[in-house]
């Protein structure tokens, strides 16, 4: 075991390999406040990468109805439970937030790597604490999820003839969109006995070498997010590849510029923003003040990692939903939740402008600048003074090409009915 810095935990932690960081890191932010569970992202991914035989139960992108649903079933509860068993009562946060090396304070508990030593199974200690989901748990991505029972052209309950209407959820819920987090310290990579999983030095995307993989499924067992999948027809594991041809700029639609993944680009709610982050030698983020991801994660601090306590340093971040039970959100996103929601609920001038970059262009925005516009509105939002300026935000690709220009008061262009679906 090596000691590596996990800045999301505010401390060093044990990891089976020495620290090695890519030149750039694939990272993304999902704004849960905007997700309405339409599953467009899910189908964009499915129709691009996992439509073949043997991939029927692969959902590299899925959207879960939390807290009921999850794919595989109860993936997060089970891993949290294993960690609690390994370190009863000790999975707590403390310390004071510091800048880049401990923005959420310090995690005092055990990660999946540290807990593995004390959780000895029939085959001895694993490199990462985890479990292998049963076939049953993989079999139904829609169990406990919300689903339409009618369409706009039929009445409620008539979507399938003879279908049953189940009781609806009477309490809080939200939609959690998930893909592989392309972690800085991947548990799948750590667990693979064949060294078949690797992290690309150019963009930090985690891939499974299909030539080396023998389908031992140690990656499935170790990944706390359960984002590797077994394919029976090839007897290998497969996972989200972060649409790497697009990230490399090989999709013709991008004109040679790096593009966001299919799931990001297809989102109708504009909840997603993906980028490439430059790293310091210790794995912390280089200061890129006008990079939208850097701003939202390290300056505004409205976007938080998913289950940072697992210890893999996931590169997927979420703007937490405002309406959800805070203890649940603390467990899911760590101690930064309260400040994030407070800031997001009454956004300042810069935050309001940067939020406009979500879903605006398929190409990756590397840098933004804001041109100040006129004041259009002032009021109180939840007891706080709120002033809105119709600023213009301009986004640039890494090579300086201007790819986005929009205003805070976004104009709405309505396609006429004749050409509504003509794309």
């Amino acid at each position: 075991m090596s000691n590596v810095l996990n800045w999301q935990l505010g401390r060093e932690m044990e990891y089976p390999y020495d620290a090695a960081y890519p030149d750039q890191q694939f990272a993304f932010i999902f704004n849960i406040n905007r997700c309405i569970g339409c599953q467009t992202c899910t189908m964009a991914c499915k129709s691009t990468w996992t439509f073949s035989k043997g991939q029927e139960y692969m959902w590299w992108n899925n959207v879960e109805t939390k807290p009921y649903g999850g794919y595989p079933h109860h993936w997060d509860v089970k891993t949290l439970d294993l960690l609690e068993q390994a370190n009863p009562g000790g999975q707590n946060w403390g310390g004071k937030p510091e800048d880049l090396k401990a923005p959420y304070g310090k995690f005092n508990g055990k990660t999946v790597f540290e807990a593995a030593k004390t959780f000895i199974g029939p085959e001895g200690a694993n490199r990462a604490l985890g479990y292998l989901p049963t076939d049953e748990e993989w079999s139904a991505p829609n169990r406990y999820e919300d689903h339409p029972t009618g369409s706009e052209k039929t009445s409620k309950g008539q979507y399938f003839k003879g279908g049953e209407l189940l009781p609806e959820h009477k309490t809080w819920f939200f939609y959690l969109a998930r893909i592989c987090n392309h972690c800085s310290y991947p548990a799948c990579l750590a667990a693979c006995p064949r060294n078949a999983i690797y992290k690309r030095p150019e963009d930090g995307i985690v891939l499974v070498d299909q030539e080396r993989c023998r389908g031992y499924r140690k990656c499935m067992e170790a990944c706390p997010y359960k984002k590797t999948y077994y394919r029976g027809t090839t007897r290998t594991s497969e996972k989200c590849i972060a649409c790497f041809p697009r990230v490399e700029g090989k999709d013709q639609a991008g004109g040679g510029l790096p593009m966001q993944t299919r799931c990001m680009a297809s989102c109708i709610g504009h909840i997603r923003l993906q980028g490439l982050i430059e790293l310091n030698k210790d794995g912390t983020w280089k200061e890129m003040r006008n990079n939208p991801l850097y701003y939202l994660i390290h300056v505004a601090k409205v976007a938080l990692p998913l289950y940072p306590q697992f210890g893999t340093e996931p590169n997927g971040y979420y703007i937490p939903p405002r309406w959800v039970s805070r203890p649940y959100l603390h467990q899911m996103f760590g101690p930064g939740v309260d400040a994030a929601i407070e800031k997001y609920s009454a956004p300042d001038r810069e935050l309001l402008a940067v939020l406009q970059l979500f879903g605006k262009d398929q190409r990756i925005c590397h840098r933004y600048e804001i041109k100040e516009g006129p004041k259009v509105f002032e009021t109180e939002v939840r007891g706080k003074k709120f002033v809105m300026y119709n600023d213009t935000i301009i986004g640039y690709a890494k090579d300086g090409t201007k790819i986005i220009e929009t205003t805070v008061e976004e104009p709405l262009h309505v396609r006429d009915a004749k050409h509504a679906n003509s794309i």
Partner: protein
Amino acid sequence: MPKDEFDFEDPFELNGMAFMTHEDTTNDMAETFIEEFMRMGYGHKQILALFRNPHYLGPNMALEKRGEPFIRDMIAEVFARWGRQVEWASVVANLPTQDCSSRRESALTSSTNQIERTNVRCYEREGEGTRGERPLTDPTGAPIPEYTV
């Protein structure tokens, strides 16, 4: 290795879980969706279409739970908070951009809900009032029929 059979006796197989709270936050969720999509440039009719469409699960569930009048009122309430007028009775026509007080009052009176009256100052918005003159589409591009609301 994964088990071939589902074992109901397996104590590790979770069949339910406890929530930390059973609070119903449907209203807050609906309000958030309205505000988010409004900020993205959606008009009030398009937002109502989101709630009406069963394929948009979260909004539709809120509409199913609370009823359409409640959702319409909430749309008006959120739009009013951001200084925007909602008229459900007819297609939005061109509005004088400077007549903020009447717009605000109109929006307030269109709601049957008690909403927080705040000291709002409006400034001119470019292009305000042009929405709704052409056929509207929902987020999938499908035309939204004119509602008699």
